[in-house]
């Protein structure tokens, strides 16, 4: 079995994730979708590593997981902070960065 | 190779970092050390020695930028002036701390001093541009955070105006270095002495000349680039304004002498009549404005436009004997020394008129305040360049230089001398003479304010008696600078 199917799956998951990030307004869901995108990338990395017989890709995937964990920790912290300040849990309403 | 200038330049800013702990004393110490240094330097200066106290070290070798500092006859007295005015401002601040974040205020002012001193001693084009732009930063904050009414638009206007000039100058500086390198076949170098040694072809000089000229004319400010001045002057806190008007504008005049004349002699040669005309318009326009304004700060602001017009006039006189430029250099020092105490006087007048800075609200302040009156009078007379003041010696040389260069322009510029007496005396009389104004409560100068004003006025008097002191140290440098053009 070639590498193609892995990549197709990876691309699909990535697109699902990206679509979610772009369309959903709940920060929690957005975080989940981000996870999807990251894992899509992980899948691609592992697949390539396997195909090339190079363990570097797998190490990279592990690294991405660590970063993702950190990101989720920070992201969830933010969500909790927003919730605590009784702000709407809706990213479209949180637009103070508007120029 | 000495460390002296490095210490001189960076001491204020570095020491200023500690200002959060005790703004009063840190400010005083941070401004006093450079003052002592500058005095020692003037005492130690060898009149025939050319560039002195040189520091020359590599900084960014890839771009040919060196960390080269030095003092010569052009910058010596301006350095002293900067430290004197900065110390006076700090003394003033020590008495009248701003209520809001005094430490930060002090730091910004000290950073300004570092930038100005750096610009005066920089002997590398890139270094000069760096310090020149650095000057803008503290004053942006000083206007934007501690200013009076309408401070935000004023700060923005000032920044945009000067930034336009600065960016053009940056481009000009890069172009100068790159084109000089490719022209002469040497390595890329921003060091001034290298650039002067290999002048650019006349055609190239002309367009680069304009980038520099524009930056300096805006900074001065000169007519018609003074649009930022009224707003900035109206809102800037007075101790900062005293320093700003007294010293920062001189960097522009100095820039003409240090960079423009030596680097672009051919361009100066071909455009100098135009700049003389511009300077004369500046003189007349500033003077006429100064005697119609009623806001005391603006009277001084526009009078500075006129005075800097005189300085520009002297620089671009390019007479064979270099008398004009010599006068301009002297006048740059004088104007700084005179305008700074006048801004302090405005603060004192405002305190006696319920905070008003409109001269229509003044009147009769001389009543019960004889000492303040005498101090104000001496500075006012010096501003109008009364013969006997060093300002007169400066204007005399400027006009003499212009006279031997383009006679008609000297005649028109002489009108500016008459107008100066009108606005300066009007300001003085309106404040001190006439009946006591409705909201005026006059009282004598306090000892602590006297501590700031009296030494400055004594310096004006001393300089009036013996301007030769500054003239003789500048003589050689001015002559070489100007004769590079008229050669």
């Amino acid at each position, binding site marked *: 079995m070639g590498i193609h199917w892995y990549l197709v799956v990876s691309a699909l998951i990535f697109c699902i994730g990206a679509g979610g990030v772009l369309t959903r307004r709940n920060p929690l869901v957005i975080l989940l979708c981000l996870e999807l995108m990251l894992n899509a990338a992980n899948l691609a990395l592992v697949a390539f590593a396997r195909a090339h017989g190079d363990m570097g890709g797998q190490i990279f995937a592990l690294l991405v997981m660590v970063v993702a964990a950190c990101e989720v920790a920070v992201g969830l912290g933010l969500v909790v902070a927003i919730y605590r300040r009784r702000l709407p849990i809706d990213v479209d309403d949180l637009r103070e960065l508007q120029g | 190779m000495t460390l002296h200038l490095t210490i001189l330049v960076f001491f204020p800013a570095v020491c200023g970092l500690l200002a959060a702990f005790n703004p009063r004393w840190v400010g005083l110490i941070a401004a006093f050390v450079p003052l002592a240094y500058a005095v020692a330097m003037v005492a130690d200066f060898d009149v025939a020695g050319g560039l002195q106290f040189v520091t020359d070290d590599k900084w960014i070798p890839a771009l040919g930028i060196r960390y080269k500092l030095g003092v010569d006859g052009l910058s010596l007295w301006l350095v002293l002036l900067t430290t004197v005015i900065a110390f006076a401002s700090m003394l003033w601040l020590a008495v009248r701390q701003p209520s809001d974040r005094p430490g930060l205020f002090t730091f910004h002012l000290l950073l300004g001093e570092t930038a100005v001193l750096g610009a005066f001693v920089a002997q590398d084009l890139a270094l000069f541009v760096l310090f020149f732009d650095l000057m803008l930063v503290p004053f942006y904050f000083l206007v934007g955070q501690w200013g009076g009414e309408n401070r935000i638009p004023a700060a923005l206007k000032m920044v945009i105006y000067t930034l336009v000039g600065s960016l053009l100058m940056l481009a000009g500086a890069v172009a100068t270095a790159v084109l000089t390198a490719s022209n002469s076949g040497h390595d890329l170098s921003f060091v001034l002495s290298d650039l002067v040694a290999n002048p650019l072809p006349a055609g190239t000089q002309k367009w680069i000349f304009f980038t520099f000229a524009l930056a300096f004319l805006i900074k001065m400010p000169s007519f018609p680039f003074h649009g930022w001045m009224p707003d900035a002057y109206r809102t800037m806190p007075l101790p900062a304004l005293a320093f700003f008007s007294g010293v920062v504008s001189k960097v522009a005049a100095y820039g003409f002498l240090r960079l423009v004349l030596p680097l672009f002699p051919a361009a100066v040669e071909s455009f100098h009549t135009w700049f003389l005309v511009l300077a004369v318009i500046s003189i007349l326009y500033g003077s006429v404005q100064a005697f119609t304004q009623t806001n005391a700060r603006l009277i001084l602001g526009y009078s500075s436009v006129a005075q800097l017009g005189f300085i520009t006039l002297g620089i671009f006189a390019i007479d064979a004997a270099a008398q004009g430029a010599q006068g301009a250099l002297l006048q740059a020092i004088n104007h700084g020394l005179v305008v700074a105490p006048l801004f302090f006087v405005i603060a004192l007048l405002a305190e006696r008129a319920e905070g008003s800075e409109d001269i229509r609200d003044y009147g009769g302040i001389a009543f019960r305040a004889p000492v303040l009156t005498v101090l104000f009078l001496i500075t006012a007379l010096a501003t109008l360049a009364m013969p006997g003041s060093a300002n007169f010696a400066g204007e005399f040389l400027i006009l003499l230089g212009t006279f031997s260069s383009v006679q008609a322009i000297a005649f028109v510029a002489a009108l500016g001398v008459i107008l100066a007496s009108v606005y300066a*005396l009007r300001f003085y009389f309106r404040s001190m003479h006439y009946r006591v104004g409705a909201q005026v409560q006059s009282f004598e100068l306090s000892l602590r304010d006297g501590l700031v004003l009296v030494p400055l006025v004594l310096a004006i008097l001393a300089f009036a008696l013996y301007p030769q002191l500054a003239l003789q140290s500048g003589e050689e440098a001015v002559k070489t600078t100007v004769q590079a053009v008229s050669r």
Partner: protein
Amino acid sequence: MSLTTYAWLVLAFPLAGAVLIGLTFRALPSRVHGWLGTLAILLSFLSALGMLNALDGRQVTSVAWDYANTLGVDAQVSILIDPLSVLMCLVVAGVSTLIHLYSVAYMGGDRGYTRFFALLNFFVFSMLLLVLAGNFLLVIVGWAFVAAASTFLISFWYRRATATAAGLKAFIVQVIGDVGLVLGAFFVFKGTGTLDFLKAFNAVDHSFTVNQPELVAACILLLVGAFAKSAQVPLHTWLPDAMEGPTPVSALIHAATMVTAGVYLIARLHPLFEHAPDAAAVGAIIGCVTLLIAATIGLVVTDLKRVIAYSTMSQIGYMIMAVSSAAYAAGMFHLMTHAFFKALLFMAAGSVISAMGGVQDLNKMGGFRKAMPFTFGCMVIGGLALSGIPPFSGFFSKDEILSLEFERGGWHAILGVAGYLGAFLTAIYTFRMIFRAFMGPMSPEASELAHGHLYHAPEPTNPATGEVEDTDVGFPGPEHHIAERAAPMKVAMGALALLAIVGGFLQVPGVSSELHHFLEPTFHDSTYYASLEPSTSSEWIGLVIGAVIGLSGIGVAWTIWGKGGTAAVYQARLGALHKFFVNKWYFDEAFDVLLVRPAAWLGRFASTTFERLFVNGLLVGGSSGLVRALSAAVRGVQSGYLRYYAALLLIGLTGLSAYFLISA
């Protein structure tokens, strides 16, 4: 002590006096300051006598230090001591001493007593600096210092609006003069390459040809300086207004010393003027015009001090005419005698004004003859000297000028004739003033004084505007002093009266020519000084004519004002002319229309229209508009929607990968 030491001491004493008085204004009682100031000037006068003693007909330059000695400019603090400057020093310091003495009493009670003496001492220093200056730069410095001192003495009562306005006017006119001097000095410097007087005089012959345009321009510009200082047409309008100052100031500055500086300058720079006869002619003609214009205005002015002020203008016209026509000794002679009798007249006028409680209007005066015999006597002596009646000093000095004009011949004779006409008018207006103030029915103030009580206004008012005033600092003090009751005033006036009588004997045709000989070393290089010597007989003819004219002038004044009555008849008959004179030939109005209003309009235009449209509209509006448009574009991208940013990121990423894929 050597000559130069004396000369520097002449300068040092008044300056030290001014500084000392200024520094001790709180420490010492104000009375002391008056005496201190007088002492300083007296010492200066004694040093001037020392100079006279040590001079020995030399011309000596003494350099103190370099002032602006750079790049070919040889400006030093140097003084030139020669007979001319010594004479001026003697006159200035001498008259100043007496006027200080007078002021000690006259200004008593004024709250600005200390300031007055500090300024007066500073003035004397400035005047002496002007006189002793050995180069163009220093003479300009003295020139301006004198103007500043005069300005602040004119507006001495600084809370009076009229006084401040007069001071401002005086200063601005003086600055015009300064600029004239500066530009004139430039021309001379360009030609001769030096600012030093003696060097420039030596170089002038081979640096310039006779009447070379540059030199004529230089001399005319120098004349502008002289005219501004000496109140010559058209730069004279400040002098009558300057009468706002205290009377001793008018006596010292606006009669005896400062206003004669222009005469001194022309005499000092005579090598230049003789080399540029065209410019000298301008000076002579303007002097002549001024003496006539001022005399006509003097005929109709009703302010006591202004009559004397116009008379001063007129007499200085004589002097300017004289020195411009190379009659140097005569001009300086008249300068000296004029200093005596004019200071005396002002002092007497001050005494009268005090008796009037500060009022200066001749219409309100009358009959002071009995109540103030001493003042009357002084006024008459001064008046006779001014009118040129033998044997008073003005008789000899004025007629010497006129006979020299005739001796020069050519068109100068016209000037001489005009001078006699002026002398006639002088006698009329002088005695008009005396008759109106001292003769006729007694005014209430005069009769009050005759009964032994000095009039004091119940409520002090400004005589010019009628405004009610304070008597605190910045206004005239509550007390008034008249010569009859104040010994210092009496001594000062007595001494000047004596000088006004005997001063003329220095130069009596055929008998003595002390001054002429004394000044010889200064004018040794003059073409005319030795040769221009009218015969004794023709001089005596001139003297007789002068005496007759003076006496007939007094006779005319007596018929019109002395006997009383006919003044109104003449006024009605010559209505238009009277109005023209009363309005001072409309000089003030002309300046207002020609200079003041256009300047004010230009200022308003600049600050409103131009600033708004061009500077703020075009330059600021243009550049800030550009910045605003750019920032609007950038700001549009910053929507704040998270997905918007994410989408941008994604598009960018896709674009980038697409680019790499295609290029690979």
